[in-house]
């Protein structure tokens, strides 16, 4: 098709179908809404009611099997990296669930995470997306955050980052040479927790030692953010 206007219309329609179907595969909240108000969900995704028949029956065992498999893959990779964080989350009343993450915009957005260590680019893993989403949603940089949750999440994520650094990696991961550190309690200058790239945890209380950490090239995990990389070109 060389007619660019027609192609744009077609791609826009396909984009909406793609967005809805992928949401339905991953997100139980969207699935529940679909069962009770499919017309409204179609409308929310910018699709007319006549497109209802393009979407598979989500009550079939086949759909449930595929949906379950997709969620499980993400859940496993996140659960394997953050076991203690998730235990702590479960202990907090009204805390976030895995569904909150998998239904979030951050899960879908490649720019919510780090570049994959293999060098393939942004958004090819879900572990870093989960950490940044959790840090933001549970306000783990705030003075009144849950300290135990903060330290478990930071320790587990720092361990993951160092493991990625230790294998052949995208140059982005060079920042984690030596290890990562963070304030145990936001707003309090000490103690500082340091996880070395030999996986040794130090609790630092000497202000002079703490002052040297950035000078010797170590990274403060509170400063680690998804890189603001420009949009990559596509073959359109």
């Amino acid at each position, binding site marked *: 098709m060389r007619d660019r206007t027609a192609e744009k219309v*077609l791609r826009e329609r396909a*984009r909406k179908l793609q967005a809805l*179907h992928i949401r339905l595969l991953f997100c139980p909240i969207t699935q529940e809404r679909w069962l009770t108000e499919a017309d409204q969900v179609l409308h929310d995704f910018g699709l007319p009611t006549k497109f209802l028949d393009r979407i598979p029956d989500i009550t079939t065992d086949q759909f449930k099997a595929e949906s379950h498999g997709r969620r499980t893959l993400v859940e496993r990779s996140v659960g394997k990296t953050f076991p203690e964080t998730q235990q702590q989350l479960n202990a907090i009343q009204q805390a976030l669930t895995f569904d909150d993450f998998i239904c979030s915009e951050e899960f879908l957005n490649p720019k919510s995470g780090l570049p994959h260590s293999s060098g393939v680019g942004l958004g090819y893993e879900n572990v870093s997306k989960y950490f940044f989403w959790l840090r933001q949603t549970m306000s783990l940089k705030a003075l009144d955050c849950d300290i135990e949750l903060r330290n478990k999440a930071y320790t587990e994520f720092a361990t993951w980052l160092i493991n990625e650094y230790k294998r052949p990696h995208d140059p982005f991961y060079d920042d984690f040479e030596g290890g990562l550190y963070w304030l145990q309690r936001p707003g309090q200058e000490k103690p500082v927790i340091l996880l070395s790239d030999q996986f040794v945890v130090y609790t630092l209380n000497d202000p002079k030692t703490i002052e040297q950490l950035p000078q010797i090239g170590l990274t403060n995990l509170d400063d680690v953010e998804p890189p603001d990389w420009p949009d990559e070109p596509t073959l359109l």
Partner: protein
Amino acid sequence: MRWDDPIQNCRIQDAHKQGLIDYIKVNYPIPFGSNPHGLGIPVLAHTSSNPTCSAEGVNLNIARRIKEAAEEMDSPWIGEHLSWLGTASTGSLGYQINPLFTDEIAAVTAMNVARLKEYYDRPIALELGPIYIRSTGFESEMHFLGSVADDVDAKVILDITHWQIGNRNLGRLTDYGLAAIDPVRIVELHIAGMRLGSDQRFWHDAHDCYRMTKSCR
């Protein structure tokens, strides 16, 4: 034999020395620091990283790396999956996501594949993932594959495992769907493991169950 990771090198070299394999199918882009080309074995270029069915198009940075590798190894074609990887123009939410097998997605796929083929300046061979959900447009995913391949004059990789997984999961006859593919287009037969899920009902791809770390001398 498909190459995904340097951990396979030793065993692949062993197999090649013994005359058990003639070529490797390298899954590009390859991880930093790896060099399957250094094994001295002919390569068929392949990728799981291009969402050929996506309305967002295909990431040019990924396509460039695949093109360069295919040129270096003079691959006779480049293997591509008919899939989505997410809702954005880059990244992947996990394993290949089957698209909706509808007319509009087929049209978008044909445009994407045609542009990739032109960009690669090399034939493309298309393959399907394992299927669980019944098609909502075409008669089946095999008819979708056959139609797109005909539209853009693409070759076909018949992933026998995925085809049989689809037939079992959807309660179809063993040979269902084969007639939808022009046999002249089939240039590769892909065979991998499949496993029955813990529910004892649905079948799954089992690439990940086969670890190539043992018996390497």
